[in-house]
């Protein structure tokens, strides 16, 4: 099972992971063409800045005991036992946003435009060359590691 592991110390807040994530979800786009000004542009990862601690990369942990899944009453969020990823099924989502309230890392949010669906890391659909954010991080602050659970 693969997870994105964060090394906070290495992050310099460049936001390349944001661009990569937005691009990964804009069909056919690349770093030159991704439209960051589009209302559809949503990043599934976040970088927070804290005066004491510096940059804090906030990424979905695809938790072992995911609070989001536990709080989801309509079955839209599920932990895939094979990949270990926490997956979201838009068709089942009731837009109650209990998950948003309960995610321990504050990584979830409703979409900006319609506020009817969840914006959540899909691990880039397990693309063979790995998650886009990880490939784009110049500092190697986020890396894919194999974990047991």
């Amino acid at each position, binding site marked *: 099972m693969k997870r994105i592991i964060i090394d906070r110390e290495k992050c310099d807040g460049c936001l390349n992971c944001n*661009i990569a994530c937005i*691009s990964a979800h804009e069909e056919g786009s690349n770093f*030159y063409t*991704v439209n960051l*000004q589009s209302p559809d542009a949503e990043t599934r990862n976040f970088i927070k800045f804290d005066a004491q601690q510096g940059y804090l990369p906030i990424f979905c942990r695809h938790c072992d005991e995911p609070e989001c899944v536990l709080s989801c009453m309509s079955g839209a969020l599920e932990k895939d036992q094979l990949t270990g990823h926490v997956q979201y099924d838009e068709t089942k989502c009731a837009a109650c946003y209990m998950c948003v309230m309960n995610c321990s890392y504050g990584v979830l949010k409703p979409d900006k435009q319609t506020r009817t669906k969840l914006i959540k890391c899909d691990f880039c659909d397990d693309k063979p060359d790995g998650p886009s954010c990880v*490939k784009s991080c110049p500092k190697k602050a986020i890396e894919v590691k194999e974990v047991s659970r």
Partner: protein
Amino acid sequence: MNSNFSCKTCASADQKLETFISNLSVDTSHHRMEGQSVKCGFGLQGICCRLCSNGPCRITPDGLKGVCGATADTMVARNFLRAVSAGSGCYIHIVENTALMLKKTALSKGVLKGKVALAKLAEIFEIDETDEYICAEKIADLVLADLYKPDYVKMELVEKMAYKPRFDRWKELGILPGGAKSEVFAGVVKTSTNLNSDPVDMYLNCLKLGISTGLYGLTLTNLLNDVMLGEPSIRLAPVGLRVIDTDYINIMITGHQHAMFAYLQDRLIQDDVIEKAKAVGAKGFKLVGCTCVGQDLQLRGEHYKEVFNGHAGNNFTSEAILATGAIDAVLSEFNCTLPGIEPICDEFKIKQICLDEVSKKANAEMKPFVFEEKETQSNEIIDAVIEAYQARRGAVALNMNADHGNDDTLTGVSEGSLKSFLGGTWKPLIDLIVKGEIKGIAGVVGCSSLTAGGHDVLTVNLVKELIAKDILVLSAGCSSGGLENVGLMSPSAASLAGPKLRAVCESLGIPPVLNFGPCLAIGRLELVATELAEAIGVDLPQLPLVLSAPQWLEEQALADGAFGLALGLPLHLGLPPFVTGSPVAVQVFTQDMLSLTGGQLIIDDNAKSAAETLDAIIEKKRQELNI
């Protein structure tokens, strides 16, 4: 491609060079590319601003404007105009130095080798003067007077040099440049914090800088140099790492200012200097060409057969040239002299001397060229190089590559030499175009880079596609350094051309890719285009002529590109010039430019589809001309 898995150098269109570099023990740009492979998305789109301490600001979904309110459109335009201003400044510096050199040469009654160029300039500038020194001085004075005008006083030579329909259009658009140096200044001021925020105004300003850059920095630099150093003439010459001869004391030259070597290159072959070389065990001195000044020397190589051994390679070949161990000194006067050569020079005990204050290398000796002291300076340089030769030869291992390059690159092509080759008239070329034997012309110009597939990869692939479509390619800039080393400028490359172009090339004994030399010679391509347009009686945008800078590298290339667009030509680039974050920029460059100047920007990093697009444009222009 790389077959050696332990090394991670980037690909090169030049297979022999790629192998050579991948086996080197020193670090080169080709090695460093991988470590820099992750790029900043904001930088690529041009939407990062660090003009004030509230920044750096970047355009993100949560921050659609900078703190001050600057939009993506404003940021991109400011960044772009800044880059074009800097690029223009570089070329204007070159033409300023060249004109000063011509003036001093004239005043001191020095050598003026190019009588044809002198007469041509006198005619363009409407100077009626029989004494060639007074004439040369007047030419230099007119150029300098224009360069030093304020930005609110228009330069006078623009109208004399520009093609009439173009001049008229520029006047209508209000983009006739004032003094070229002041225009650079204006571009820098305009783009400072909280000044101009109007993208369209800034792009028009870019066109204005393109005009001053093109007519002065490019075209005039060539012609002024021709007066001092001799006109190009067509010949076959060796190129690549093979040109380095270990029997000689070898000086690699880098930069863009051929005139700075005018005295030295003649001095190096005088008897007393050769004797000095012999005294330390060498046969004499040789200059090895690298970057554009090497291209310039190659272009005028007919006049420098003894001292010049050939052009070894472009900017991203410079580290490899030094790593042969057979170069004893680097004389540099401008870009593109990579910082990456510095540690190699240290390791290989290569003497570095910089001749222009603007391009001091960190570990090099600074010896600003002073015209009045050229004799003593040259002697000092010669002694320093001999000292380096003695200290290093024998102590530094040689790693030659006699197999690299070829012996039959056709060089020396210019607006003048090409026309005389055709019999003193453009008619034969026009006839071939009209008959469709040559479908059109593509100027494949600009730099060499390691992006867009690797070193010269897109350039070479695009050129192969174009010639296969019977499009004649003219090249100027480091692109030609790559194209010549892979053999595309050898007559045998005709076999890679489409059947019609191939037949033309074979009957004339020329390659399908003609080598105009340095990036400065983009100005010569403009002269060719203008003369063709004049002969046919059309404006430039109507010609079946396209430009491409597939692997543009730096700010100067952007100023060149602005010139191309001002001329109204379609301009292809492999990678976007950091503007795609702005919808206005994209609209202006790819659409609106057509109605402004007739030009158009095409971005495509795929050789095949880019060639198809350029081919379609040429076909369309042919149709519009009814040919």
